[in-house]
């Protein structure tokens, strides 16, 4: 069996297309590369959707935490504390068992116990809390002069927010937000180790990597393959976010632009 056959059989295995059974012998380099790569589909799915949807909630939470209304302010602060103060691993477990016990109440909750929706919701709320805190910090450091200039131009309310406050906030927050995006993608590997079942062995990259490590008793091949894929993914994220960063800073002179400096934030 050539490597092309393997790719045809297992290239889309993680979303249920191709061979039904996972490989049971051989465990060649080609099989490992293909299956772990096909698992990356789930990591990208979780990461991209959680990041895109979380972005809007994060903005709302940041505005809420900065607002003068005590109800909004307290609610946002508690939301951020709840998701930043506890381990993501425990959040996954709790959410899974919560949805499991809601299941008998109504069939609406059926899809929530599967990873594609249930884990996505947890990741969405989690990244919203982390990026909300980042955006809140950036919102606090929007220069006063910018707001005063906007006032002088007669802008107020929505138009001032849309044209001055929000773009400046994004510009300030962007390097930290890039970090958050990288670690969100890393966090997606936790999904299939935290209660959510991998239905018909359709799992993410780490699920397949640990499958091979368990079968061959040799961790030195699958995990470096996984590392290779993730470093590739991280480089893609950095370059994509770098492009957006360039666009956000396009009006500034060359030397005043915020350099993309990656800082430590690690896991949740």
């Amino acid at each position: 069996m050539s490597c092309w056959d393997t790719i045809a059989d297992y290239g889309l295995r993680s979303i249920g297309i191709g061979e039904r059974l996972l490989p049971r012998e051989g465990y060649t380099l080609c099989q490992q590369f293909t299956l772990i790569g096909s698992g990356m589909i789930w990591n990208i799915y979780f990461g991209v959707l959680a990041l895109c949807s979380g972005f809007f909630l994060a903005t709302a939470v940041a505005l809420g935490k900065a607002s003068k209304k005590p109800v909004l302010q307290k609610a946002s602060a508690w939301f951020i504390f709840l998701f930043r103060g506890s381990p993501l691993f425990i959040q996954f477990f709790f959410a899974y068992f919560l949805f499991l016990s809601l299941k008998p109440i109504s069939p609406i909750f059926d899809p929530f116990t599967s990873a594609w929706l249930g884990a996505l919701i947890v990741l969405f709320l989690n990244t919203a809390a982390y990026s909300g805190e980042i955006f809140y910090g950036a919102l606090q450091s929007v220069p006063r002069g910018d707001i005063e200039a906007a006032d002088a131009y007669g802008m107020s309310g929505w138009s001032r927010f849309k044209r001055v406050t929000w773009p400046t906030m994004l510009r300030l927050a962007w390097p930290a937000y890039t970090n958050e995006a990288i670690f969100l993608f890393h966090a997606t590997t936790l999904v299939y180790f935290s209660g959510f079942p991998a239905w018909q062995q359709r799992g993410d990259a780490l699920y397949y990597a640990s499958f091979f490590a368990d079968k061959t008793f040799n961790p030195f091949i699958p995990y470096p393959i996984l590392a290779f894929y993730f470093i590739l993914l991280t480089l893609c994220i950095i370059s994509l976010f770098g492009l957006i960063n360039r666009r956000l800073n396009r009006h500034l002179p060359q030397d005043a632009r915020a350099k993309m400096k990656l800082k430590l934030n690690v896991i949740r």
Partner: protein
Amino acid sequence: MFSFCADPASLGDLAWMACYLTTGKHMAIYTSVFTVLLLLAITAPTALAFGFIGASSARSHFPPLSWIGKAYIAVVRGVPDIAFFLFFVIALDQLFEWIRHEIKCPDWTDSIWQGNDFVVCDIAKLPLGNAPQWVHETYGFMLAVLTFAIVFGAFAANVLYGAMRAVPHNQLETAEAYGMSRRQVYWRILVPQMWVFALPGLSNLWMVLIKATPLLFLLGVEDIVYWARELGGAKTARFTDYPHGDWRMWYFLALLVFYLLFTRVSEIVLDKVMRKLTHGQATLAGEAQRKAA
């Protein structure tokens, strides 16, 4: 535990709960809280030591050593840490067994990789096949600690490397002007001054370390996550005196609250420490403190 627990079926709600929460297995979950604390107590200094070695070697003037240090910092950052956890537990175990194998059975001719198996001679096994249960558990725990220390050592190395570069350069130049050797400058000037710059990063790291402790479960240690899953599952009257439905949700809610309290308390304590350390420092925060007083 209590004397009235002899016949649980006849008890009222409150007394039943008191008895239920003090069964032998529940004592195991309470002791596993100490496992978490023990892990933190051992890992934090070990990881700091690893980080110190990593940062020092990344700064080294001997290129191969600095490459190793920089690679150590970079690789751990680029790859999900949970992958490292799963990797190191097997890899370290195999490394130790292989070293013992080479020492204890030098006349073994077969390859240690036989098909899909990793085979070492019997007396090289770790722990030995006839060792008591607690040895197995301790060995598993030590592997977990070492894994945590390696991964978090890289994060600490990153923080310390940044802190070493943040120490004002003229301090080091002055020391050189006084005729100190490179080693003396490093130990007498750089190292004592870097801690203030490292503290914000290290306290962030401590929070991250707390939040990483439930991953012990993935390393095969019987920790709080393991017991929460075990105890929370539905129990019928056939197997226990305390039958109940699926309570895992409540157990994990309790864990969530435990971790929230833990991080909150650490946050408050670290804030206090930071305030103490910035007192009188020539930094923005120190200046603000001086003005407020």
